[in-house]
């Protein structure tokens, strides 16, 4: 097994340049891949799930070569992976490390839970305002109804 710069064994190979998304809850790994559209990138994508983690017990990790995310883009995953850390790798070294943050508004990825909302009846891109970041409550820009954490569905 390969080792990282501190000599720790790596369960998922290191990348030369790109982004590592670490500490993803296991059940959200595939969701994160989908939200970030990683199923469509041309570069190398490595991922692992159910890996041992001191902090979380078990975790998931995704490594994307040659991809550097804008904050708006990466923060979308905060809905499914609020614990995620983002590590920017340049030349095999950690260039930057930060936590994801729940954004103030969310477009496209979430479905409005109200079946009578226009976004569920016409081809309209959804848009929500995050009115509660702790409990995760989203207010639909269109029907103005609130979608609570337990009702959040992704496209």
């Amino acid at each position, binding site marked *: 097994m390969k080792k990282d710069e501190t000599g720790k064994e790596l369960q998922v190979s290191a990348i030369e340049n790109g982004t590592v998304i670490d500490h993803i809850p296991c059940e959200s790994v595939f969701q994160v891949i989908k939200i970030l559209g990683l199923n469509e990138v041309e570069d190398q994508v490595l991922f692992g799930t159910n890996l041992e983690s001191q902090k979380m017990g078990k975790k998931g990790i995704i490594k994307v070569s040659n991809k550097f995310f804008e904050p708006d883009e990466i923060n979308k995953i905060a809905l499914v992976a609020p614990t995620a850390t983002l590590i920017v790798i340049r030349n095999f070294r950690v260039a930057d490390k930060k936590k994801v943050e729940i954004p103030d508004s969310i477009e496209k990825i979430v479905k*409005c839970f*109200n079946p*009578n*909302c*226009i*976004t569920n*009846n*016409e*081809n*309209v891109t959804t848009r929500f305002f995050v*009115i509660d970041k702790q409990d995760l409550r989203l*207010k*639909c*820009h*269109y*029907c*103005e*109804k*609130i979608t609570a954490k337990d009702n959040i569905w992704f496209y």
Partner: protein
Amino acid sequence: MKNKSLVSITDYTREEHIQILNLAAEFEKHPIQKILEGTVVATLFFEPSTRTRLSFESAASRLGAKVIGFSDSASSSVQKGESLRDTIMTVSNYADIIVMRHPKEGSARFASEVAAVPVINAGDGSNQHPTQTLLDMYSIRKTQGKLDDLNIAFVGDLKYGRTVHSLVMALCNYNTTFHLVSPNDLKLPSSVKIHIKDKNLHYYQYTELVDVIPKVDVLYMTRIQKERFSDPIDYERVKNSYILKNHMLDTSKPNLKIMHPLPRVNEITIDVDKNPKAYYFEQALNGVFVRQALLASILGVK
């Protein structure tokens, strides 16, 4: 307010609400002013409505505008499967302003984003009905002499009643004390209550109408629809506790006014109509002045 769509009551500021009410008062004094001659108002009613549509059309006529549109989606291209987007984009080419009612929540917001002309929401599903709200505010101010510091009761279906949602939100600007009377199944939704809480205003919830009558300045009645109940027995159990009868008003304040967005079914008995505290028919008339004020402001002639 020129060219500014009115979708949700909160799209306009408190100051803009007052401007509309003041202008409506002017139209009440001089209702016939042909200041919109040559203008075309489209009224697109994807869902039937008598009062709202006719009062808009009356308002437009009194201002000299021409009205085009449909009163039922069965007689429009929706029947052929046309999307709302396409209908709105097409009508944008024919009219200077669009007034629309649609059964889906959020439809008016969406229309305002695709239309090249301003859109007035005349009701989108159970969401918003801002022009009704402005006429309710007008009626409250006219009968109470003010909007501030009033005790206002909302009675009936507070869950699905869009007129209630919009009015509660608007009144949060005026230090209102809210008395919310409804069956447990039809309580005010949290998405609306949040506005009351944000302003730290007081609200009280009741399940009995009689308890609230002596306390309030305005009694805002709404219709409880049988189909809102999952269990018809629940409906039978509650329906009589939300009917206002004339003798129940004996304990009410002298300045009390009874309002109702109409249509009424049986929630206010006919004997109340003769009581000077009944205000619902005058309230409906005020709708024309308020809609005149809106058309004139948004089209930029006032």
